[in-house]
């Protein structure tokens, strides 16, 4: 009997990096730090893009890394006012957890990632470290031309570094593979109300951590098996319908709390969620131009600028489409771009009569604290 896809996703997310090479023999891995990473290019270059996330997972047996030696910790490189994503990922790197990566690709997003990219380059001198500097002015008529050139420059670096040639044909194959994954994830979201939110989060997060071919096969099988299945019974007659918005969701605590309280996540606007797979890449024409175009047309993250209300419009439309009862802002402490957007998004939701809750998270947020806040919010929704 084949393995249960959901179990595979859960296992991948529970411990994504330990024994990665043994789990996927013959595969080469390159780390990425953002959903804006041009994954198709890495794939066409022969790599599996692996998202570096602050996922809670067991410590490796040996603490020796490629960093500056034993005992080197992220506190020696990053200030205490840096977000947990940057600190934890660097910590894992210094512990040697990412020695299976042949390179790490940064995508210029926020000021913290900008600093982390340079710090990484300095502390892992034997690793291939590159940054694709994404345009911020998405509506600028010049952004497309710039990004195409930036992607070509990145391709040239990959080709020189690894002595390879990345052909348009290979890029088109990768684009098709990634579009298939986007389409499967979209199908998953269409039936997400029949699944536990934890399972959905595991499936989409696993997509960033394992070979796409394998993820596609598993997800396709999992969705196929759902045909004819009934919806999972909710704890209450009409469970509250919630939307989550923020950066990455790094563990399932919040989702478990929400479901234990009888509510349900019906949609999201997260890096480890819909913002990963929205908008397919055009398969016709120049593949690099098509990749660039997708980056400019995607749902914007707060580090990008398209218009003053693009994110609010999206959130309101999402809430209307999914008949949401409330929105939870998942805000990482010290995450500036999302912290900056919170007041205006919250005001837009309030104006539309949509209740919302702000949950500030750190690397380990006490579950009791989350439970108390979420339950109080759900109580309020009932009234």
């Amino acid at each position, binding site marked *: 009997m084949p393995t249960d896809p959901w179990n595979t996703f859960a296992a991948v997310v529970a411990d994504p990096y330990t024994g990665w090479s043994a789990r996927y023999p013959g595969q080469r891995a390159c780390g990425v730090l953002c959903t804006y990473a041009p994954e198709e290019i890495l794939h066409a270059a022969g790599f599996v893009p692996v998202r570096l996330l602050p996922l809670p997972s067991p410590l490796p047996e040996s603490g020796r890394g490629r960093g500056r030696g034993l005992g080197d910790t992220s506190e020696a490189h990053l200030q205490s006012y840096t977000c947990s994503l940057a600190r934890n990922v660097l910590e894992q790197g210094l512990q040697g957890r990412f020695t299976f990566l042949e390179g790490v690709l940064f995508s*210029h997003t926020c000021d913290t990632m900008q600093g982390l990219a340079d710090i990484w380059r300095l502390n892992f001198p034997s690793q291939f470290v590159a940054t694709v500097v994404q345009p911020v002015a998405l509506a600028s008529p010049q952004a497309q031309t710039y990004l195409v050139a930036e992607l070509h420059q990145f391709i040239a670096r990959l080709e020189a570094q690894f002595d390879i040639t990345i052909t348009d044909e290979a890029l088109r194959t990768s684009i098709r593979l990634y579009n298939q994954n986007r389409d499967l994830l979209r199908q998953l979201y269409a039936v997400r109300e029949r699944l536990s939110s934890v399972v959905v989060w595991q499936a989409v997060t696993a997509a960033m951590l394992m070979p796409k071919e394998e993820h596609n096969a598993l997800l396709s099988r999992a969705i196929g098996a759902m045909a004819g299945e009934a919806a999972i019974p909710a704890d209450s007659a009409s469970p509250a319908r919630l939307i989550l918005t923020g950066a990455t969701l790094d563990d399932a605590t919040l989702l478990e709390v929400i479901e234990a309280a009888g509510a349900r996540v019906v949609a999201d606007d997260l890096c480890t969620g819909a913002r990963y797979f929205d908008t397919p890449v055009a398969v016709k024409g120049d593949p690099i131009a098509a990749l660039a175009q997708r980056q400019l047309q995607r749902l914007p993250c707060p580090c990008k600028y398209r218009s003053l209300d693009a994110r609010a419009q999206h959130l309101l439309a999402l809430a209307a489409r999914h008949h949401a009862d409330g929105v939870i802002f998942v805000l990482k402490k010290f995450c500036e771009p999302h912290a900056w957007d919170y007041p205006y998004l919250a005001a837009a939701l309030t104006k539309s009569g949509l209740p919302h809750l702000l949950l500030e998270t750190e690397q380990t947020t006490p579950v009791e604290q989350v439970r108390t806040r979420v339950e109080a919010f759900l109580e309020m929704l009932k009234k």
Partner: protein
Amino acid sequence: MPEKRYKKLQTAAELNKLLEWHYTQAKYLRFGKPLAWVTSGAPVEILRAMGILALYPENYGALCGARGAAATLCAVVEGQGYAQDLCAYAKSSLGAMLVPKQAPLGGLPRPDVLICCNNICGTVLKWYEAVARFYDVPLFLLDTPFLHDEADTLPPHVVAYVLAQLGDLIEFLERHTRRRFQSAKLRETIELANQATALWLEIRELCKAKPSPLNAPDLFVNMAPVVVLRGTRECVDFYRRLKAEVAQRVAQGVGAIPRERYRLLWDNIAIWPKLYRFYNLFVDYDACFVVDTYTGGWSLQLLGGDPLDGLARTYTGVFLNQSLQYRARRMIEMVEEFAVDGFVMHSNRSCKPYSLGQYDMKRLVSERTGRPGLIIEADHCDLRAYAEEPIKTRVQAFMETMVQS
């Protein structure tokens, strides 16, 4: 009577008058001129050439900090849902918009347009978005891709991108202010800007003298005109007189502090609310900050040739738009050029792009120069992040080590 730790410059009164004129003009003497709010790294020369007035919310944020108003204004903004750890310049400026009566100068006058260039940080975009929503005024973003690679020349596609956006900026300004752009006017403005930045560079170079004629507070206070009035005649005139006074100090062997025994380098923005008190901790040990990485940001010469191409290259290549590897190299050069004995880095909670990487840079600079470094955790505006006694202890320990070695 104790010896005064500060020798006041004679041009100080003139400086105050000049800045007062700058703010007053924008508020009361506009004579129909459009007003833009611009970031410190925006190519203001284009605006000046079009007869558009420019105010600098960052400079205003520093003013709020220096006058001790930042904490109150930040608290007002935090009450609106803004997180406590967001930039205190930004929050001071937003606070002044919400409660102008509690703000220095009664707040800044309402802008007609906003020009945001992200060559200094990503925060300015979020800040200016908030301002644009508040006033319902148009915002232009000039996107200058960050330079992670230390290349001798800027990547052509980056220059092309920024240059094309400068064309869009001109069109944006013409549309929203009904002013016409003239290339000849821009050349004149760039010439004036270059004169001011050249003088400012020369003034900073004069600090290579022993004793140094200026200390960090002098540099920080006197950088204001080259930031906010760059491209004007008044700015050039001011720096001519300042340079004459500083050169005279050098000629007469007069230092900025009573006795200069140690020469230091400063990294990051000043701690405005404690500008004098903080640097005095070092004066007590006869230590003078003869150079810094911040105030030199406005001493770049705009390149010749096509003026817009020069603007694109200059504003993309600013210090803060370059990698920490580049910045460490510049610091190492400054240590050598200014014969510095040690360096102090302000880990500025408000300013992540400037501060992240400092721990590694400290190691790099010390390894390469053999000079000791000190990191101070504080904030450029918000005194809630300034722990007086621990800072004092750290400064004393650092200076005691230097005295004993």
